C-alpha cells in the first residue's frame, strides 16, 4: 500500500502481458498463518483459510496452514483445525520459545519457512499479532504487503494476487498488486471474510520444521500476561444485533436513543469514526475500516451517511436498516430498508414498535 496516496503509481496501461521473473516461478501455493494465543485459534485464521481455499482452487495449488507454538498436543491440534477448514497441509514448528508471541522468534520462524518452501501468497490476520508479524516478515523478505484487505482475488494470467482495500477518506476502493516479488503478502481483519464450514472428516499432511534458536539469543522477554476482563468489553464483532449512530445524531445526549433501542433488542451499540473521535462512545464501539468489522444478523444505522470507511466494516450484515434524513445518503445504496426522516423521532418510535412485538411474542410464547 502506498503511504502517500497522492503519489500512487498510475495503473499499468500497456496491454503487454506480464511475465513473472524465472526465479519467482518456483514460488507455489497459498499459506495462511494460523494465529493462536493461550491455546485458542483466532477465528480470523479460519476465515482466511476459507478465502484461501477459493483462491488456491482458482490457481490450482495447495492451501497450507502455518502453525507455530510450544510443543504439545494443543499446537498439533491446530493443524487439524486447519485441515477441517480447508488446508491440504500444515507447516508445523514446535518450540518452547514460541510459547508466547514475541516478534523476534516468530519473524525468524516464518521467514525461514517462506525461504525454504516458497509460497506465492501468504495471508495473516490483521490483528495486533498479525500486523506486528506481517510488517516484520515482509520487510525481512523485502516483499510487498497490503494491509486490511476487504476483497481478495487472483489474476490468473499474471498469477498475481489482487488485494483490494478502501482508499483514504474517499468513496473508492483500490486494488494493489505485488508483481515481481514473492510471496505476495496481505492481511485481512477479523470478520471481513465469512467463516467456512468445518468438516472434521478432512485430513492433511504435516511438515515439521525447526526454529533453530536458543532463549539466550532472544532479547525480548515476556514478564507476564494480564488477560482482559471480557465481560465489561463490548463484543461487536460477534454480536447478532447492532444499533449504531453517526454524526447525524447531532449531540452526545441524543445517543441515549441508540442505547434505548439496543437495550430493548439486547443489542450492542456501535458508532462511526467521527462519533468515537468526538468521545461520545468508547473506542471499542467504532465500526469501520479503522474500527471493528461486524457481521450481525441485523444492523440498524441511525444518522449514518454510509461513507466507505464505515461501509466496509458492516456491509456483510444480513439485514441493514438505515435511518437518515437525507434521501440521497449513500447508505440507502446498500441498506435493505430505509426510513427517510429525523432519527431523533424515528428511533423512539422504532423502540416502541420492537417492544410491542416482544410483548406479543412473550404472550404467544
Amino acid at each position, binding site marked *: *500500500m502506498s503511504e502517500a496516496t497522492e503519489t500512487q503509481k498510475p495503473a499499468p496501461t500497456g496491454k503487454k502481458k506480464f511475465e513473472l521473473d524465472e526465479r519467482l516461478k518456483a514460488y507455489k501455493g497459498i499459506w495462511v498463518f494460523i494465529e493462536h494465543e493461550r491455546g485458542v485459534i483466532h477465528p480470523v485464521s479460519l476465515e482466511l483459510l476459507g478465502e484461501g481455499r477459493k483462491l488456491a482452487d482458482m490457481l490450482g495449488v495447495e492451501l497450507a496452514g502455518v502453525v507455530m507454538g510450544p510443543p504439545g498436543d494443543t499446537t498439533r491440534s491446530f493443524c487439524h483445525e486447519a485441515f477441517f477448514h480447508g488446508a491440504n497441509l500444515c507447516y508445523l514448528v514446535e518450540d518452547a520459545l514460541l510459547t508466547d508471541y514475541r516478534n523476534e522468534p516468530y519473524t525468524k520462524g516464518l521467514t525461514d519457512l517462506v525461504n525454504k518452501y516458497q509460497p506465492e501468497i501468504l495471508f495473516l490476520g490483521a490483528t495486533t499479532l498479525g500486523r506486528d508479524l506481517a*510488517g516484520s516478515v515482509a520487510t525481512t523478505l523485502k516483499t510487498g504487503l497490503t494491509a486490511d484487505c476487504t476483497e481478495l482475488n487472483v489474476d490468473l494470467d499474471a498469477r498475481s494476487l489482487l488485494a483490494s482495500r478502501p482508499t483514504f477518506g474517499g468513496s473508492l476502493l483500490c486494488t494493489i498488486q505485488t508483481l515481481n*516479488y514473492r510471496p505476495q503478502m496481505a492481511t485481512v481483519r477479523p470478520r471481513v471474510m465469512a467463516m467456512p464450514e468445518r468438516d472434521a472428516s478432512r485430513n492433511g499432511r504435516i511438515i515439521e520444521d525447526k526454529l533453530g534458536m536458543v532463549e539466550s539469543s532472544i532479547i525480548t522477554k515476556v514478564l507476564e500476561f494480564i488477560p482482559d476482563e471480557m465481560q465489561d468489553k463490548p463484543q461487536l464483532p460477534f454480536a447478532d444485533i447492532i444499533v449504531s449512530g453517526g454524526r447525524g445524531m447531532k449531540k452526545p445526549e441524543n445517543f441515549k436513543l441508540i442505547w434505548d433501542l439496543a437495550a430493548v433488542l439486547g443489542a450492542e451499540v456501535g458508532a462511526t469514526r467521527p462519533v468515537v473521535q468526538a468521545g461520545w462512545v468508547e473506542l471499542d464501539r467504532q465500526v469501520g475500516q479503522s474500527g471493528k468489522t461486524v457481521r450481525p444478523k441485523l444492523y440498524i444505522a441511525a444518522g449514518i451517511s454510509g461513507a466507505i470507511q464505515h461501509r466496509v466494516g458492516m456491509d456483510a450484515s444480513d439485514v441493514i436498516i438505515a435511518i437518515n434524513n437525507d434521501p440521497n445518503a449513500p447508505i440507502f445504496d446498500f441498506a435493505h*430498508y430505509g426510513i427517510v426522516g429525523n432519527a431523533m423521532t424515528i428511533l423512539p418510535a422504532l423502540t416502541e414498535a420492537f417492544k410491542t412485538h416482544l410483548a406479543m411474542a412473550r404472550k404467544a410464547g
Partner: protein
Amino acid sequence: MHIVVCIKQVPDSAQIRVHPVTNTIMRQGVPTIVNPYDLFALEEALRIKDQYGGRVTVLTMGPPMAEAALRKAISYGADDAVLVTDRVFAGSDTLATSFALASAIKQINKDMPVDLVFTGKQTIDGDTAQVGPGVAKRLDMQLLTYVSKIRSLDIENKEIVVERRSEGGVQVLKTKIPSLITVLEGNNEMRFATMANMFRAARYPVKIWNKDAAGIEDITKTGLKGSPTVVSKVFAPTPRAVKAEIIQCESNEPKDLSVTLLTKMFTKFPKIEKEISKRAA
C-alpha cells in the same frame, strides 16, 4: 537519552471532499495536520525527556510542505526536526518508506546515538501500521508494537519494560534499548505548546535532507523502484443490486413507519423475527 519520533503530515480527514464527477479525493485546499496517532508517540517521548533528560528529534519523510508538521512538533517541545524530502521518494510504498526513514535515522545516530525510536500505531491516511515494524527490522532494533504504557526505563542497564496490547490481554515485555516502539493512542494527552516553544518553532531551522544527506546511495530501494506494491486499479464499490426499500405509509408518522418496517422485514426475513423473539424469553 535520545528519542527519534517519526511523524507524518496527513490531510485532515474531517475535511476531505470527493470530486463529484471523477470520484477522486480533492486534496487542494484540504488542511493538513500531524497524524493524530503520532502525537501520542511524541507526548510519550517528551515525558521521558522530562523525567530522564535528553533530546527528542522529530523526523518525517514527505513533500517540502511537511515542514509545517515538524514545526508543530517543535512547538510542543521537540528539540530537533529533520525533513527527508527528495523527488526520488515519490511513489514510495511502506517498504520503500521504511528504507528512507531507517537511512535517515542512521544519519541522525551519527550526531547523537539514538536510544529509542517512537512512532504512532498507524497513520490515518494509509492505515497500514507497517512502517514502524519495517524501520525496526531495517535498523535491527527490538520491535514493540501497540505499547500502552512504559513501565520503567533503566538507562544504565539499557533496559525498558513496557505494556503491550495484544489479543485478549496485555503483555508485559522487557527488552534492551535501542528499540522501536509504536505507541498506542489514548494513554496520554498532548501538552499545550508554550509561548517560548511557539517562538522557537517559528525560528527553528528545520534540517532539510535530500537523499544524499539522508545517506541513501542505492536509489533503487526508494520511491517507485523500491516499492513492491503497485496500485493497479481504483474503483467504486459495487452497489447492491437492489437499493434500500424506503419505508412509506399513508401517515408517514414515525410510529406507523416503524410498524410497517417491522411487518415487511419479518415477512421477508423470518430469521430476524426469530432472532428478536429469542430475546423475549
